[in-house]
């Protein structure tokens, strides 16, 4: 006996809202994603075969109208780290509850910052070995957040995430020895799916978030069967070390995708001026780094795809390159 759950809200909204006997006021959506790849890597001159789970997850979400102007929404999502050493592989992802009015939405809980969200779909290798977060700081999901998103005004939206000072990832201010609260802010233009407009753009700024101050500007455009994206980032430590603000680095990312039939060909270049830790002659150093990535997705259905990728890392102060390659399956439900 299986409990079958319809997940498509379209069904519920379009077809069932007119049915007085069937109440779907508490529409519950069980959803998830299983993404696993067979992967080969050569890192620090060591070859490794691995079965790699890429942000596989399981979640429950829903929303409920309270009255004509107010609705409630929630999400409880967990990562399923299939490949983990430990069988305790059920790990919190975004988990929040919120309210939506015509003045925007506000939510509280564990969530991605708006700066993280501002990347949209520009990172073509999201969750793989070339994920933008490997070189850029700022891809933060934080435990104690409150997030506001404005309504859409002429395709513009603004958003802000407040991170409470008691969040474990907030770093102590050396001058006061207290933790400060952090603030992540963003202004976006267009939609990340490039559905309503052929251009998406965002400017985001993190102040004292997880110990970093970050400026990130993102843009993506759709031209016929292609998308092009670019991100510029400047990042630095929030607090001075020995009187000097350290880890001041510029970064760049360029991505492109070409859609033909069921195939998507993808490539990406990413660069960061410094701050990447590597081991050289037994010592930990920080270095400038860049990645080149190539990939292809083969879409089997709206829910499923096969994919292959190759990523190469170059480091300024390390003679050897690192490489990753893999083939995988993703199924969304």
């Amino acid at each position: 006996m299986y409990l079958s759950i319809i997940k498509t809200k379209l069904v519920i909204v379009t077809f069932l809202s007119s049915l007085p006997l069937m109440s779907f006021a508490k529409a519950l959506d069980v959803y998830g994603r299983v993404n696993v790849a067979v992967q080969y890597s050569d890192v620090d001159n060591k070859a490794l075969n691995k079965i790699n789970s890429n942000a596989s997850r399981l979640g429950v979400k829903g929303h409920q109208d309270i009255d004509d102007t107010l609705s409630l929404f929630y999400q409880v999502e967990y990562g399923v780290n299939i490949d983990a050493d430990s069988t305790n592989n059920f790990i919190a992802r975004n988990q929040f509850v919120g309210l939506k009015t015509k003045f925007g939405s506000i939510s509280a809980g564990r969530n991605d910052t708006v700066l993280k969200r501002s990347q949209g779909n520009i990172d073509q290798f999201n969750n793989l070995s070339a994920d933008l977060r490997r070189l850029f700081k700022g891809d933060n999901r934080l435990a104690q957040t409150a997030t506001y998103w404005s309504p859409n005004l002429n395709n513009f939206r603004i958003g802000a995430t407040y991170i409470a000072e008691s969040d474990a990832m907030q770093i102590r201010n050396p001058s006061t020895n207290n933790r400060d609260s952090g603030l992540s802010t963003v202004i976006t233009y267009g939609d990340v799916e490039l559905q309503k407009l052929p251009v998406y753009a965002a400017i985001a700024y993190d102040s004292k978030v997880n110990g970093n101050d970050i400026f990130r500007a993102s843009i993506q455009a759709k031209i016929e069967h292609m998308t092009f994206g670019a991100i510029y980032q400047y990042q630095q430590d929030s607090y001075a070390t020995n009187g000097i603000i350290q880890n001041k680095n510029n970064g760049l990312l360029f991505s492109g995708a070409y859609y033909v039939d069921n195939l998507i060909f993808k490539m990406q270049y990413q660069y960061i001026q410094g701050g990447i830790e590597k081991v050289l002659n037994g010592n930990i150093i920080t270095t400038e780094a860049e990645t080149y990535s190539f990939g292809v997705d083969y879409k089997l259905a709206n829910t499923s795809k096969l994919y292959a990728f190759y990523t190469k890392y170059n480091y300024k102060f390390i003679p050897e390159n690192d490489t990753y390659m893999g083939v995988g399956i993703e199924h969304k439900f």
Partner: protein
Amino acid sequence: MNELTRALVASGILSVASLPVLAAEPVSVYGKVNVAIQTNDTQGDLNTEIKNINSRLGFKGSVDLMDNLETFYKIEYAVNTSGEDGARTFTARNQYVGLAGEFGSVAIGRRDTVLKDSQGIVDPFDDLPGDIENFFTGDQRIAQTATYYTPTYNNFRLGITYVPESSIEQKNAAGANNDADDGMSVAAIYGDTGFNNVPVYAAVAYNSKVAGKDVLWVTLQGKVGDFLLGGMYQNQENNASGSKRYDGYLLSAIYHYENMKFKVQYVTADGGFSLQKFGGGNSIATQDGESISVGFDYSLGESTNVYAYYGNYSLDELADDSSAWGLGFSHNF
């Protein structure tokens, strides 16, 4: 179509023509709650426990694609109702994504090896103290696997599980200072565990360097009237040099009568027995022994069972036998 969709179509609320728009992918939420009260007599020390018998909760589904292809996924967790690790009771079981078609099926993720699969239902005391995993090696779920099964030809199929070096079982077997090996599990299987097409189930399976061991299993089970008679041979050897190779045998019989099932099993192995495995106190190095189990299942319908069992363990080097008996209740949903 899930049941709700089907009901709506039947009632004329949804027209069949609108179904492709829906394409709602049902998530099957399923599970099992299985708890027993068990008394252990370990060398004369009595203790009673409320024992969780592999209770579980899972999410699974599949989607039909073109060309007779389908993708499938499963995320299953054990629910250790009586777990000793505080309230952290959610531990990973099989979790994978796969693709099936005329070529057979491929699944990648966390999964039982094909050697474990090959036992079929020859072990009627699965998950109870008489479970072969308490005596034989190879009853393993591995964190990182890729498994391929051929299609079934004339009731015959082959399977192979690849275990990369980075899986925790391989790393543990190698030790911290050594490079781990890739492992491989292969199986040839005749018949099916439902005995639908042929009255015989037979399997030969071999593990090479899986979790540090080479293991051979040969399984045979036949349906004779209302009886299922089964036997199994195992041989195992540690990959570490100079370690002992040992054999084991299992004989089992299951008699079905109306909604009752009578079960008996005998296991002997020249090594591999330890008191700790069946609830006994102190760890004792593995040694020769034999075990006899008898049990009785009473079905309260399709998904619910009450059952009773008794198991006796006799270790060659210990004067006193140990035993366990219990009464349990299981419900599948």
